[in-house]
């Protein structure tokens, strides 16, 4: 029997899977704890304000947003930059649309893109150094609870490996980085922003992975994946529209054949 959706099937496991990379990183980065606390305060502050204005409840998903930002920024990042970046991403990426499930960009992607764009003095593009094994629990948990569409994850992996090979880079290098794997799972394969149809999800994954490998020829792979994901989430509604048009046309043809055959 499958579990019902909600806190215990969706939000908590996704959060617990982030615990391992956070603990691993905290060993070499004493500021991770305070940074995480700051991110949590900023995210939940904005969420509580909008929840109150709209008469909605809170959700635990904000904790994952805060943990991902705290994990992905460099340890030298000034806290005032984080506050501005988080406020921008959480408010304009999610809250103004009505909360999670109603927006079209992943807020963490928007936060990171904003930080990379605005503050060139910090190495936001580089992403953290995480071994692959710290990301493996997240792979299992997010796919087993249905939160990361398998099509998007495989599409992104195929796109990254394939285009890296074509551009002459090592095709397996992006898949060996824990930070990239986590970013693909939580950001690229976010179920809300990565396409709503089966075909659309594969195409979104391939597009994100492929463009990330292309962008990576001119900079670090992590920043490339963030921008590739941002680009893909903008195109996701169009991709879905086309995928649905093809699906409906095929179903209609099949219906005519069955009705008259």
């Amino acid at each position: 029997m499958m579990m019902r959706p909600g806190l215990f099937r969706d939000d908590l496991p996704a959060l617990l899977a982030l615990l391992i990379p956070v603990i691993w990183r905290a060993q070499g980065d004493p500021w991770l704890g305070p940074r995480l606390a700051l991110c949590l305060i900023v995210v939940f502050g904005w969420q509580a304000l909008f929840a109150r204005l709209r008469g909605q409840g809170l959700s635990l998903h904000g904790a994952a947003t805060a943990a991902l930002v705290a994990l992905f920024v460099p340890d030298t990042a000034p806290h005032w930059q984080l506050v501005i970046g988080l406020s921008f991403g959480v408010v304009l990426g999610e809250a103004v649309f009505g909360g999670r499930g109603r927006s079209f960009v992943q807020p963490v992607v928007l936060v990171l893109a904003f930080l990379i764009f605005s503050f060139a003095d910090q190495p936001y593009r580089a992403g953290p150094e995480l071994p692959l094994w710290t990301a493996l629990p997240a792979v299992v948990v997010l796919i087993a609870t249905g939160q990361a569409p398998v099509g998007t994850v495989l599409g992104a992996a195929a796109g990254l490996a394939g285009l890296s090979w074509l551009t002459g880079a090592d095709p397996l290098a992006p898949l060996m980085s824990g930070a990239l794997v986590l970013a693909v799972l939580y950001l690229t394969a976010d179920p809300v922003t990565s396409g709503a149809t089966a075909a659309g999800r594969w195409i979104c994954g391939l597009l994100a992975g492929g463009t990330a490998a292309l962008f990576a020829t001119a900079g670090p792979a992590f920043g490339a994946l963030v921008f590739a994901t941002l680009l893909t989430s903008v195109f996701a509604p169009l991709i879905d529209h086309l995928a649905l048009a093809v699906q409906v046309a095929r179903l209609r043809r099949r219906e005519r054949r069955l009705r008259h055959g």
Partner: protein
Amino acid sequence: MGFPWRPSRVPLVAGPVGDVRLHGTLGFVGSDLAALRPVLAVAEGQRVAAGSRLLSDRRRPWIVLVAPVAGEVVRLEPGPRRGISALEIRAGGDEALEFDTTAAGSREGLIALMVQSGLWTALRARPFGRVPNPATTPDALFVTATEARRGAPDAAAVIAEYEPWFRPGLAALTALTPGRTWLCHRRGHPPPQVPGVTPRGFPDGPGGLPGAHVHALHPVAHGGSVWQIGWQDVIALGCLLETGRIWRHRIVALSGSGVLRPELLAVPPGARLHDIAAGRLIAGSTRLVAGGAEDGLPVPFLRRDIRQVTALRHRLREPGRGWLRQLAHAARPALIPNALDERLAPPGIAPVPFLRALAAGDVETARRLGALGLIEEDLALLNARFGRQGTDYTALLRQTLDDLEAEA
């Protein structure tokens, strides 16, 4: 794309059929009566025989409700807009109306008999999910002999027991359509062979819903129409044809975490859930719902088309309190796509865009994505996952179908 897990088997209830002692009345609640403007055929205090007409619809005279058992009408309450809000019968006596079945060989004779005996309302037409107008003819007829929910009666076992009635009922139904009559049965359990009927095997679970069968064999999402009927109503028609009297029972499965053991019971339509479960529940508090565990309804009486009663152990305390509960249950949550839940979608439907179109009231997109091929029951399993707190996608589908019907 789902995670490659094997779908779990759907446990069904089989075994000897027990009897139910009726202490209370049989009831028909206003919302269950398909009639919009009823014409009453009985008055309060009047005695009725099994099969005698209780009411019919003013505009659509083929919608007829008959008394399932002999007894006395003890309560008859008028409802809003000249409707009936409640009709209750106290069972007693053994009188039964004799129907003339000699003309049932022809299509007109069969229709007249089914309308008279209240069996016509067992048919549903797609698109729109209404009781069909007998003046129309469907392109195909679907007989559903599969179950989609855990704890439902094992159709194959019960049909085997009632084969002397199932067979003539099925043979008679073929007259309703010039097209094919499909018998959709459990895969691996071949049903009785009847000339003119095409059997087809389907899996249990979501694939056992009539919507899945219609999609696989004769889709109507973009044109055409089909009718469907459940396997128990085929048995009921066979009983009527063979004996001249209506079948006074339906076989109902009682299951769930709150019962001593799951079992099959012969229950008259409209029976009180409490009467059905009396003496069969575990000690401690339980909650009875008509239907399956995921989408059952806490109603007092069992509708004729519902074949299972589920007793659920009461949770002593709601999980989570205060702030934790507020976190767990966001008010008016948006739809978050989930690959596991999407596997419960009816085939041929892209679940997330379809549910979004329903929620947005986008009738045209819903139609393009296949709304006309669906009725409420097809969406029930999906709704149990996605429709939480405030968003009832089955009700939204009904609204969408009503809008599309008004347009047509």
